[in-house]
């Protein structure tokens, strides 16, 4: 175990897998000598050379499409999209192609591809460098989406994603890169895709969330603990496919559920989580299923007061938790 920054855990996973498996390579904008605009791939070009740490032209549909072709051939590409917001031009390749390649060929062709993209706000990124994009993809059969919360998961889920025989979107919160650090197992460490994690046990209310919001919710839960409210906190970790069993169990445990995400509310991952609970655990509920999410505005403004207005924080979450506990 070594305490690592979230960003370093991501780099470690790439580096270890590249050493282990010659099929793994990285492609994206500025991933080479620049080491990525966030420095995730820093130093890798020195070790692996520019053939395996490849600066691409500025063209996301090609980044995804070329990676898909390489994956079909049998490589294991890790494509970096510089900001999740810029994955939009690649949507056709991701949804029409990567997600459907195995299915449409009746299992003959496969697409073992990882697409990494920094998402999330609170970093003065304004409308187009702050968005959460999981709602765009989590309804697409054939894709998997992981959104790690801890450095340990960042490493373990990335290694699992690279080894996965199907396309995996790996969304990393840019606000967490240098904010979050925790114990990461040294060497080979995988975290199963599709499994949520209970981050805190409790009996009064259940909070279901993922990504940066897990940390905010943990802070809020601590505050509520001091007020006598005990919180069960489920970190989804994978948002597609969702861990139905864990969701239902967490909801049943307290009968009061608050779903939290940074992404806009309508049609977000929280909608499906709520629907799963309403489908499978309705009679265990003691309160309406609450959601606390980003407001339904196109994206997060640049000006600090409006950005803060958009972003959730421990206070806002604690308020929603109190309301639920008091129900």
């Amino acid at each position, binding site marked *: 175990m070594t305490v690592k920054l979230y960003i370093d855990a991501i780099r470690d996973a790439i580096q270890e897998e590249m050493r282990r498996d010659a099929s793994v*390579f990285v492609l994206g904008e500025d991933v080479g000598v620049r080491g990525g605009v966030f420095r995730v791939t820093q130093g890798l070009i020195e070790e692996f050379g520019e*053939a*395996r740490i490849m600066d*691409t*032209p500025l*063209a996301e*549909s*090609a980044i*995804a*499409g*070329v*990676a*898909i*072709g*390489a*994956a*079909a*051939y*049998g*490589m294991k*590409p890790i494509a970096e999209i510089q900001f999740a917001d810029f994955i939009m*031009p690649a949507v*056709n*390749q991701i949804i*029409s*192609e990567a997600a*459907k*390649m*195995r*299915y*449409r*060929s*009746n*299992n*003959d*062709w*496969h697409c073992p591809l990882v697409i990494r993209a920094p998402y999330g706000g609170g970093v003065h990124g304004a409308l187009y460098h702050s968005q959460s994009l999981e709602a765009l993809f989590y309804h697409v*059969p*054939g894709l*998997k989406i992981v959104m790690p919360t801890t450095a340990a998961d960042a490493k373990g889920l990335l290694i699992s994603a690279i080894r996965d*025989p*199907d396309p995996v979107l790996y969304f990393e919160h840019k606000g967490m890169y240098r904010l979050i650090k925790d114990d990461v197992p040294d060497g080979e460490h995988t975290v199963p895709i599709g499994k949520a994690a209970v981050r805190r046990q409790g009996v009064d209310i259940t909070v279901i969330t993922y990504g940066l919001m897990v940390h905010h919710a943990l802070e809020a839960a601590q505050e509520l603990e001091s007020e006598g409210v005990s919180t069960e906190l489920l970190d989804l970790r994978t948002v597609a496919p969702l861990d139905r069993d864990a969701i239902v169990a967490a909801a049943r445990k307290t009968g009061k559920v608050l779903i939290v995400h940074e992404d806009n509310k309508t049609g977000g991952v929280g909608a499906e989580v709520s629907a799963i609970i309403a489908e499978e655990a309705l009679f265990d509920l003691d309160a309406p299923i609450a959601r606390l999410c980003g407001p339904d505005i196109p994206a997060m403004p640049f000006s600090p007061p409006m950005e803060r207005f958009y972003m959730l924080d421990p206070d806002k979450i604690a308020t929603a938790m109190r309301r639920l506990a008091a129900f």
Partner: protein
Amino acid sequence: MSRHGELGLSDDDVRSMYRYMLMARALDERLWLLNRAGKIPFVVSCKGQEGAQVGAAFALKAGRDYVLPYYRDLGVALVFGQTATDVMLSGFAKWEDPNSGGRQMPGHFGSRKHRIVTGSSPVSTQIPHAVGVALAARLRGERLVAYTSFGEGSSNQGDFHEACNFAGVHRLPVVFFCENNGYAISVPVKKQLGCERVADRAAGYGFPGVTVDGNDVLVVYAAMKEAVERALRGEGPTLVEALTYRLNPHSSDDDDRVYRTREEVEEAKSRDAIIAFGQYLQTQGLLSEEAVDDLRKEIAQLVDAATAYAEKASYAPPEEALKYVYAE
């Protein structure tokens, strides 16, 4: 020396090419008939483009090269190993269809064992895939060519541009093959392309672009051969544009009478590569009229047998639809 001899093609080669052209034509016509008889719901036709396709495919090497053909490229799929039965199974959407187990429409080729990469319906998405295959092969140290084809209308998609440029920057062994048949469904090339020729676009990616007569099989072969050799020498991609014509409506759902005259279609029929290539073989004394008749008969029997087999073959059970969303 004969024209084909000069290109390094043996007499058997050109006879074989002709056979593939006839086979593609026969399959296409049968599928069309089956559609009109209400037996299969959809066909997209290669009719008129077989010469360009077979000319292109013969410059490649099945087993070594990867192909990412578009929906009309039946000729290429056949040269790369798909059989009449495979094609009919796909037409009837049966479980044994090697392309998709009956999941996709006909014309959506794919089989790993033949290095035919699975294709979809949104046009041009295969073009970056071909670049990816070429890149991957280079990373693995495998010497091969990735071939991909598309229509002239489809060369207007962003994916064409992004893929060509990517291949140009990295000098990857890709051949971009455009079958310019003058129409994208109803829209004539004048309303599709700002430029005269799709090949004019290659300069914007730093590699050669050539336009050839798609009704002259040997001219297509020659251009493709050069492109393949360039690619194998590590000199990068080529864009080959074959001027051709689609003799049928766009698909079995289309009616082309509203957007082109019968005279135009008839005139194009007279320039059919199958006629021209047949005459060439006869002139060269490589195929008597009799031999052609025999060949046609043999092919008709193959197509009959394939049709009968495919018609009787079973559909995938309904619940098969749930399989292979992910690895199992």
